[in-house]
Structures are given as structure tokens and as C-alpha cells.
């Protein structure tokens, strides 16, 4: 087994531990505590939740590392943070901070129109969004250790995540036909 595949196996194994759980977006240490107490398996530390990013407009970037650290110090559950699509330096910064997972996220403004981050180059596991099996396979091939189907973030509307999506999600047999 090469070093790369054993690392990927380790990272995807880590992500398996979150299975069956809820991961919550939090913007403060207080919110992170509430999420932990409610039984979240992990929190996503970010400056603005998607509905506020939507309202704010402009370019959405990685959150302030000080704010991410404050959340990491507040809880014992894993902390995730978002990097922009293709922004491998934001990912390097998040890895240096010691976050438990990096989300290469479409909720932030993409930093590269052609490439996603080479996630095999990192020790920290990545979660990535996908809308279909092709996207999922490309992300896993790039080293993603966990996937999330992309509903429409910040809408509070499950139609995208649920009915359009999950019924045909890569987790079901529908894709085999």
C-alpha cells in the first residue's frame, strides 16, 4: 500500500466516525457549545452562516483564524472550517490551525475556475460538496474523505437537498442504472 492510499484510508476512516450524526454551522464559541450540548457530532466554524453570506453578497472567504481557534477551544467535538474551492493556501492555513476537517465549499466564492484543491497533499481530511455521481467521483479522486450532497445552502428549503437529490444520491442504487 502506498503512503498516499494509506493516508486516504485513514482520513476516510476518520470521517466514518461522524456517520449518522448532525454537523452544525456555528459562528461563535457560544453557539458551538450549544451545538455540542445538543449532540452535534461536529461543528462547522464560520463567520457567517450561508443565509447571511447570501444576504451580504460580495466575495465570501475563509473565516478569521482567531474566530476558528476560539471555537476549537470551546468544544471537544471535531471542528471543521471552510476553504474556497481551489484555494489551497486557505486550506494550508486551516491545516496549520489544527482544524479536524476542511470543507472545500461552494458556499464561499470559488478561487479557481478550473481546479479544486489537491486534497491528497494534506494530512487533514476534506469534505466536499457534490450534485451528482460524477462530481463525487472527481472529488474523491482528488482525495476527499467525505462527501455531502449539495442542496441550496442558506435557503432553508429542503427541496434541493431532499427530493431532487437524495432519492438519487450516490448512496442509493438508483445510480447503478
Amino acid at each position, binding site marked *: 500500500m502506498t503512503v498516499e492510499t494509506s493516508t486516504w484510508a485513514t482520513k476516510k476512516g476518520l470521517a466514518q466516525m461522524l*456517520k449518522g450524526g*448532525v454537523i*452544525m454551522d456555528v459562528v461563535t464559541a457560544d453557539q458551538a457549545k450549544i451545538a455540542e450540548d*445538543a449532540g452535534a457530532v461536529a461543528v462547522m466554524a464560520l463567520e457567517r452562516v450561508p443565509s447571511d453570506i447570501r444576504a451580504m453578497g460580495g466575495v465570501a472567504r475563509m473565516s478569521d483564524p482567531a474566530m476558528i481557534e476560539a471555537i476549537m477551544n470551546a468544544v471537544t467535538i471535531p471542528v471543521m472550517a471552510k476553504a474556497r474551492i481551489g484555494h489551497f493556501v486557505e486550506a494550508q492555513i486551516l491545516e496549520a490551525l489544527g482544524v479536524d476537517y476542511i470543507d472545500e465549499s461552494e458556499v464561499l466564492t470559488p478561487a479557481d475556475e478550473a481546479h479544486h484543491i489537491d486534497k491528497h497533499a494534506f494530512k487533514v481530511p476534506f469534505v466536499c460538496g457534490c*450534485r451528482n455521481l460524477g462530481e463525487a467521483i472527481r472529488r474523491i479522486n482528488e482525495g476527499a474523505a467525505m462527501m455531502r*450532497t449539495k442542496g441550496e445552502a442558506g435557503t432553508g428549503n*429542503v427541496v434541493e437537498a431532499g427530493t431532487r*437529490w437524495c432519492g438519487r444520491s450516490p*448512496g*442509493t442504487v438508483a445510480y447503478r442504472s
Partner: protein
Amino acid sequence: MVRQIARDGRLPVVNFVAGGISTPADAALVMQLGAEGVFVGSGIFKSEDPARMANAIVQATTHFDDAKILAEVSKGLGAPMRGIAMEQLAESDRLAVRGW
């Protein structure tokens, strides 16, 4: 990898659902549809009572196929986040189409 996915009928990594989950029923819906977990973004801290909503969504994700428990945890949660209908959202404002 494609062969393995075709054979197993599932991805080789854990697969969650994200985007648009704002009630315990939403979480249970995607779990019944085959999700292996959920991300809740704006749905918790944009609701009226975040601590209760957070707890209710965790319960609903665990007991997604038990409608009695779902009914119980859905009681008296206050207002969920306001929400946006898809037809009110301009194509240029859509986030899910980012990435390829």
C-alpha cells in the same frame, strides 16, 4: 473506483446531505432517502429557539424512521428559519452550481 461504486451501489466514503435542512422532519426526510448524516447550516441558529431546534434535529437524525419520536421532538420548536422558495432565487444567486 467507478467499478467499486457500481458494485457496492454506494460511494467509498461517507455521504452526508447539506443545504436546506431546517426542521427535524427535513433531517428525517433525507435520512430516510439514504443520507448517512446531515449538515445543518443556517437552520439552527436562524431559528427562534436554537438550543431546542439543535436537539430536535439530532434526535430526528438518530430516530429518522420512528414517526412517533419525530412527532414528539417537532412539538413547540418555535419558528424555523424563514427560508427562500427556489423560484425566488435567481440562477446567478445559486450556490450549489459552483464546483464541477
